[in-house]
């Protein structure tokens, strides 16, 4: 009988390794503190920079002494990769932190249930709210979705399923369209629709401009997703007597569902905080406007812009609170979309 084997991890780090790593970290930390104190360098970035340099030197020297030059390179690159990751996350977490810090004082009980029709942005914080801006942003996003999702996905289907004669030029134009600056989309709707036809601000005008910005994102992402669907499935559907449309609707699109939802999420992400075209087209009213087709309508980016422009301390606080609400709203939309797509996959 052989001895009873217990599961082990011979490749795991030993306590000695951990102690050495921690002492390297602490040593680098102490060195950076001492170095900054001893020289003319100032500021938090100096600490961080010296810390990374010290750690890189320390760990790669150790690797070089124990295992030679290749190991030293390995540990140097490891440190650089970690530095890159930290540098990427730093601005994002800094933004989140700042928005939370400056936005929280602007929150009050009536923020989500009042609009600004009875208050100006320089009034005390507890008056007014962002209801008109939230409803406006949701209306704009919903209208833009209704227009851009069908157009974007149909464009992607033309490129991947029909592969018509114009697929090349259309792909090129869609790519070019994704580079259109948002202010240009706004000016286009202003001169092509608002001035000659409706002659007034409305959520629809803003949504039209947002649609122009959203279609390329949705179309290109959907195209990528549809290209990943194996051709086997299309052939199987056709071989079972399905027309191309039935095969696409019953098999290709359902198989691509979660990817298509990602395309829509990316589209929403593209437009949710878009400001420039809304300044031109929506009028930015301070009152909840139930009619999306007529009359000026507020939105969160517009509210933020307006409040920052007003300049008083109350207005600035309002603007930060608006930013916080916008970020939470976008986060909620994403979570909702993710939950909707992942439910049936299991």
């Amino acid at each position, binding site marked *: 009988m052989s001895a009873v084997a217990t599961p082990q991890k011979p490749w795991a780090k030993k306590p000695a390794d951990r102690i050495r790593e921690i002492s390297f970290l602490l040593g680098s930390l102490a060195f950076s503190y001492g170095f900054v104190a001893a020289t003319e360098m100032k500021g938090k970035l100096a600490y961080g920079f010296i810390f990374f340099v010290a750690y890189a030197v320390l760990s790669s020297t150790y690797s070089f002494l124990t295992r030679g030059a290749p190991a030293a390179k390995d540990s140097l690159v490891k440190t650089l990769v970690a530095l890159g990751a930290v540098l990427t996350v730093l601005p994002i977490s800094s933004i989140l932190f700042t928005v939370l810090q400056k936005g929280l004082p602007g929150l009050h009980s009536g923020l989500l249930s009042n609009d600004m029709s009875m208050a100006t942005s320089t009034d005390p914080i507890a008056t007014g709210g962002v209801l008109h801006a939230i409803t406006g942003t949701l209306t704009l996003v919903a209208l833009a979705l209704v227009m851009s999702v069908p157009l974007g996905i149909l464009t992607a289907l033309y490129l991947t399923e029909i592969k018509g004669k114009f697929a090349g030029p259309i792909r090129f134009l869609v790519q070019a369209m994704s580079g259109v600056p948002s202010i240009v989309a706004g000016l286009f709707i202003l001169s092509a629709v608002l001035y000659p036809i409706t002659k007034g601000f409305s959520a629809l005008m803003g949504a039209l401009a947002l649609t122009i910005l959203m279609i390329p994102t949705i179309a290109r992402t959907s195209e990528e997703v549809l290209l990943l669907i194996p051709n086997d499935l299309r052939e199987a559907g*056709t*071989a079972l*007597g399905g027309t191309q449309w039935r095969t696409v609707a*019953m098999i290709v699109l359902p198989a691509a569902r979660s990817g298509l939802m990602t395309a829509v999420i990316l589209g929403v992400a593209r437009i949710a905080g878009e400001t420039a075209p809304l300044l031109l087209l929506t009028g930015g009213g301070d009152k909840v406007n139930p009619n999306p087709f007529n009359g000026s309508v507020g939105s969160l980016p517009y509210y933020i812009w307006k409040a920052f422009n007003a300049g008083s301390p109350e207005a600035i606080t309002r603007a930060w609170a608006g930013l916080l609400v916008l970020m939470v709203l976008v986060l909620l939309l994403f979570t909702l979309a993710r939950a909707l797509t992942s439910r049936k996959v299991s």
Partner: protein
Amino acid sequence: MIQTPESEKEMSTPAQPSSLASVANAKAPRTQASTAQGTGLETRGIHAWFGKNHVLSDINLDFTAGSVTALIGPSGCGKSTFIRTINRMHEFIPGAAMAGEVRLDGKDIYAPGVDVTKIRLQIGMVFQKPNPFPSMTIGENVLSGLKLAQLKVDNKDELLESCLVRAGLWNEVKDRLDAHGGSLSGGQQQRLCIARALAVSPQVLLMDEPCSALDPGSTLRIEETIRELSDSMTIVIVTHNMQQAARVSDYTAFFLSDGGPGEMIEVARTSEIFSQPKDQRTENYVTGRFG
């Protein structure tokens, strides 16, 4: 090496290529005289091209109703291309062209005005790689052909069960028809694809190397299924496995390409192809001297 008809299903792998003939002879004789139904499917002068590349030349082959025909031959000799011309899947490949006639019950399926989707309902296909629809459950997969072709049936549950029974999968999945098709093993997925093809009641079933991605056990199950199905429909199977051709088919056609377009060298009863082929090249191939 003694093979009796009774031992057909449990047959072990014969040791030498020369015993393929005894494998072919060992099959139970057909119970019904299939010629009574006439030849349901005939091909006349089939050529195929991909762009300027001529891949298939002048194939004339009749498929007897209620029989299994195996197409054998080395890779690249046009077997798969040939069966894809039979249910008009060939035309999906960009640059594809063809010539000749495929007659189903006497009517050319390439004639103008023919409803292609109806043709594909009558001539079903099972692919090399199992490809159940990922967004559908097992039950939905089986019945997907009805929805795709917008057919109505009175009793869906009955059809579902009968298709899965005929594909030899019912006992394994009857308690989890709501599970996803992807949760099955490779062999089960392929039988699911066979059940899916059966649900629209095809006259002819084309199988393009249906077992090449499967283990020997699953292969045997599918071969049993093929033998059972062949009582009620015409089956054409492309295979690289000569054991398989000997085990399941009534007729065998040998395809070969000598650098140019693929041609059909010989077609005969399977037992003849493996025991006394007329052409030297066929003999070389089935005895494993090349290919």
